[in-house]
Every structure is written in structure tokens, then in C-alpha cells.
């Protein structure tokens, strides 16, 4: 298995440990990651409103780089996933495609529409498979009460995986259960973490994050597991801000899917750089 790997800006900076964990996990599973090291930012939410045509063209450039390798793109961030699927959908329009390929011609690239974009949990569940993950588990997460947190952009506007309409997903639960953990249901699991307004309205973003942490805590979870680097940063690095805004003490460790799988597959805390978390997962007694 080979993928063109796109860690995303958050994976390259605030969540560098998740990028690292993803590489270690992939190596452990025999998945080869070829990093798209010349790819640009996906534009997140700002790109599409501030300069949509540049955002479209630069994402097409990234996808064309993956196509040059003959590979699909692997993402560890929900918004990167959305931004690329948005690009692919826009480029199904022949006029847009011609315009973008004219621009990419300036740097010797053409977008063909072949590369697919795959979020990490999709690769783990659909390509590796739950049975194989279970078989490769070295340290089953028995007794770990983990609250799945999907975030938004793998569910809305269109579900990235799973057969349902994105309203009552269970693939994250399926993944955690395959790794031996106990998935704890909670009402905020498909809600927003608040990431996209943290920079401009931190109190509001932190209040939104607090709702998620509150929901997981009330359900009796020991930690939260998410497929997204942005959700991870919001719930971990901004947990203090969320505690301040809600006047509640959470101290809930947040784990990215790459880390949950990495732990179960026997990687050490040092391998996974778990000491980089703001809320230490050490209390979980896993590694």
C-alpha cells in the first residue's frame, strides 16, 4: 500500500506529533507514505472565501503532484479532506478544469482527475480492514473508555466513509472497538470543535470546544479520539481556554486516530511523542 501523504499545515506545526505518529503507524502497517513535500496549504475555510480561484488552482496542483506519483492522497485533517473534495467536485466542470489546467501549464503540471483523497480512518478501515487491525494489535486497549469525536468535515457536507447519511456514523466506534477499546457514545460526537474561529474569536471557539469536552466527560469517557488534527489541537491545546470559558475542569486527554491505532499496535509513548500533548495521556496508563 502506498499513498501520497499530505500532513497539512496543522500536522506540520501545532500537531507535529500526530504527523510523526502517522508515519510510525504507517511503517508499522507496511504502508509506504510518499510525502507531498512541495504541496501548498489546502486553503482551509479562508482560501475559499478570500481567493477561491487561487485555492482551487493550488489544490489542483497538489492533486496533480499526487497523480504524478500515481497515488491517492492520504490526509489526517478533516478540513484538508473537505478542501480537496471540494476542489475535485469544482473541477468536474469542464470550464473550471480548462482554466485551472491552463494555469498549471505554467509550471508543467496538468490535473487529470484521477487522484482520490482518503482520510486516515478510511485507509485503516477500508484498506487495512478491522479484522487485520485486530490481528496486528499488540496492546489491546481493553478497558479504555474512549469518546469518539468525528468533527465536521468527514461527515458534512458529504460523508467521507460509512454507508449512512453522516448523521449517525459509527465508523469511529468500529475502529476503536477493533483496536480493543470501549467506545463511549455521547451527544456531541458529530458536532463542531470550534477550531475555525479560534484565531478571531477565541472565547466563542473555546465555549464550543467546552461543549464537546463536557459531553465526553458526562458520558464517562477517559479520553477523546478524533480523526482530525484541527479537532485534536482545539480540544488538547485549547482545553485550558475551554476550562476557563466553561469554569469546568476537564483534564481529558485527546488522542488522534493515528495515536490510538499506534498505541494498540504496540508503538511506545516515545515513538508517538505523546509527551507533546498539552493534556498528558499518561494518566490513561497505556504506554
Amino acid at each position: 500500500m502506498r499513498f501520497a501523504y499530505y500532513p497539512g499545515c496543522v500536522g506540520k506545526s501545532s500537531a507535529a506529533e500526530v504527523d510523526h505518529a502517522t508515519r510510525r503507524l504507517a511503517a508499522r502497517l507496511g504502508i509506504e507514505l510518499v510525502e507531498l513535500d512541495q504541496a501548498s496549504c489546502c486553503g482551509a475555510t479562508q482560501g475559499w472565501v478570500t481567493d477561491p480561484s487561487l485555492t482551487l488552482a493550488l489544490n489542483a496542483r497538489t492533486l496533480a503532484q499526487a497523480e504524478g506519483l500515481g497515488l491517492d492522497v492520504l490526509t489526517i485533517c478533516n478540513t484538508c479532506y473537505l478542501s480537496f473534495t471540494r476542489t475535485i467536485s469544482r473541477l468536474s466542470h469542464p470550464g473550471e478544469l480548462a482554466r485551472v489546467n491552463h494555469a498549471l501549464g505554467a509550471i508543467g503540471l496538468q490535473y487529470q482527475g484521477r487522484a482520490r483523497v482518503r482520510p486516515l480512518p478510511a485507509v485503516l478501515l477500508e484498506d487495512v480492514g478491522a479484522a487485520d487491525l485486530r490481528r496486528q494489535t499488540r496492546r489491546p486497549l481493553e478497558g479504555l473508555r474512549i469518546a469518539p469525536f468525528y468533527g465536521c468535515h468527514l461527515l458534512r457536507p458529504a460523508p467521507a466513509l460509512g454507508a449512512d447519511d453522516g448523521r449517525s456514523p459509527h465508523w469511529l466506534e468500529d475502529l476503536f472497538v477493533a483496536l480493543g477499546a470501549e467506545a463511549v457514545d455521547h451527544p456531541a460526537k458529530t458536532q463542531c470543535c470550534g477550531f475555525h474561529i479560534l484565531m478571531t474569536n477565541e472565547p466563542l471557539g473555546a465555549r464550543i470546544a467546552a461543549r464537546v469536552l463536557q459531553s465526553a466527560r458526562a458520558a464517562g469517557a477517559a479520553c477523546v479520539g478524533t480523526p482530525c488534527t484541527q479537532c485534536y489541537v482545539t480540544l488538547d491545546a485549547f482545553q485550558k481556554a475551554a476550562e476557563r470559558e466553561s469554569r469546568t475542569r476537564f483534564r481529558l486527554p485527546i488522542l488522534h486516530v493515528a495515536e490510538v491505532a499506534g498505541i494498540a499496535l504496540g508503538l511506545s509513548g516515545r515513538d508517538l511523542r505523546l509527551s507533546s500533548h498539552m493534556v498528558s495521556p499518561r494518566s490513561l496508563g497505556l504506554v
Partner: protein
Amino acid sequence: MGAGQVVARIFSYDPAEGREPRYETYEIPRAREMRVLDALIYVVDQLGASLAFRWFCGVRRCGACGVQVNGRPVLACWEPAAEQMVIEPLPNLPIVRDLVVDHSGYDRVVDRLFPYLDRRDPYQSFPEPLTHGAMRIPHDLMQCVQCLICVAACPSWRIDGEGFQGPAALVQAGRFALDPRDALDRSSALARGLYDCCSCYACNDACPMGIDVLGHAVEPLRAACIKRGLGEEARHSHAFLDLIREAGVVTAPSLLLKTRRAGALARAGEGLKLARKGKFSLASPISTAEEIRKVQERMEER
């Protein structure tokens, strides 16, 4: 279907009575193609319950019958009855009684956004010279029945209406502001709260009319405000794109410095804590960043 029962636990509360809200449980014989609205009507008409709820058209046109069913805001007239239902008033809005919520906060927000067409040119005659392409977005927004289900689903909406206007009000603003016949500049009224949308698509997902609330209202209105440079978010968005153009990547410290400038220093303490965990690092620019300029130039050619 047809046989069997529907068990509905329905929220009951009258602020005038001064007692705690409670839930009443009703057993309702299941009918063919039964909707939540049919169950509510049965509870009042056949079981004689005192229950306040709003409805008028029963066919997804009037927007009056919004309620929350099993945790999801829906139109009672457009939602199949489930075997077990917890029916509550729409969240995020003040309760008048039982399932009836107060829409007046929303009405006030809409009023401040000039919800009317301010014509560029005086009306000539029917038909107006409009194209389908130019009316595509306003036409989608015209489907809005103002049921406020998107508001109930929105994580950023605050009842006081002071900050974020909420998705429904932005649909109403967009309906006129994005109409090619309109000439009124609403951007300063919009910019005050518009940027608090966290792009979660909960509004799109909840809308019973299938309106692309985020793509057709929030984003185009936001784009107009950013273009005019209104508010801190505009600076943030321009800084974000500048970083992409210069380096290809965007990191929190570089963005913070560009957006908040001297204000970023106020957050130095927190930055330091994050930096100690390696979370506040500047990613190195991609070595082919000049390709970005070339692509941009070509995109701007036509």
C-alpha cells in the same frame, strides 16, 4: 407499518407557572405514513392533552412547526414519527410554552440586515432581464421558510443576537444582497458577527429545504466583507492568503503575528507554553513557492 404504537415523551413547560420543566409520556396508535406532526395533533385532539405547539401548512411551506426530535431539530410536518420519540422545543431559542419558541430575537437580527431589495435601477416591466445563472444563488435562498432549524443546529448562535447573526438571518440577508438587482451595501452591518460562523455545515445538514446555507449565503457574504477589508477576520483572511502566496504553508505563529501584530505579544506567555511542546514552530516554506505566483498569474489572466 401501520400497526403498533408510538411512544412520545414530550417536553412540557410554562414559564408563567414557575415550576420546573417536565416530560409527559403519551402512547399513540401508529398510523400509516405517520409524521411527528400527526402524533402531536393526536395528543391534543384524542388524548386531550394541554400542549402548545405551532403549525399551519403541514407541507413544509410555513416553517412554523420546528421541534427537536431525539436530539435533532426537524420540521414536525416533514419528519416520520419514530417508535420512540423525545420531542422538545428547538434549542438555542427562548421557550414561550411547551414546544413553542420565541422567534422575535431572530426577527430583530433580520431587521438590522435590511431585508429588502434596494434596486440599482428602477423597475421597468415584466419580465425583468434576469438570467438563471445570475439568480441561481438568490433563488436557492428564496426557498427558506424561516423555520429556524438551522439556528437550532448552529453551535455559534447566541440568543442575544449581539454577535453572530445566525444562519437563518444570513440567508435572508443573502437573498437580497446577492441579487443582481440589489445595490445596497450591507457589509458593515454584516461584518459585525458574520465571521463567527465556524464552517461546520450543521446548518446545511439540518435545513429541511436543502439550502446550501454555508456555500450560498455565509461564504459569499463573508467574501464581500473580506474584500472590503472589514473587521479583524478580514485581516486574518488576507494574512492567511499572503502566507500561502509567500511560503505555501500557514502556521499558527506566523498567522498570529500577521493578524494581531503587536497584539500577538499579549499572548506570548501561552505561546511559550505551546512552544515548549514544539507546537508553536514555524514550518519551513516549500522550496517551489515561486510556482504559486506563476499559477496565480495565469489564473488571473482571463
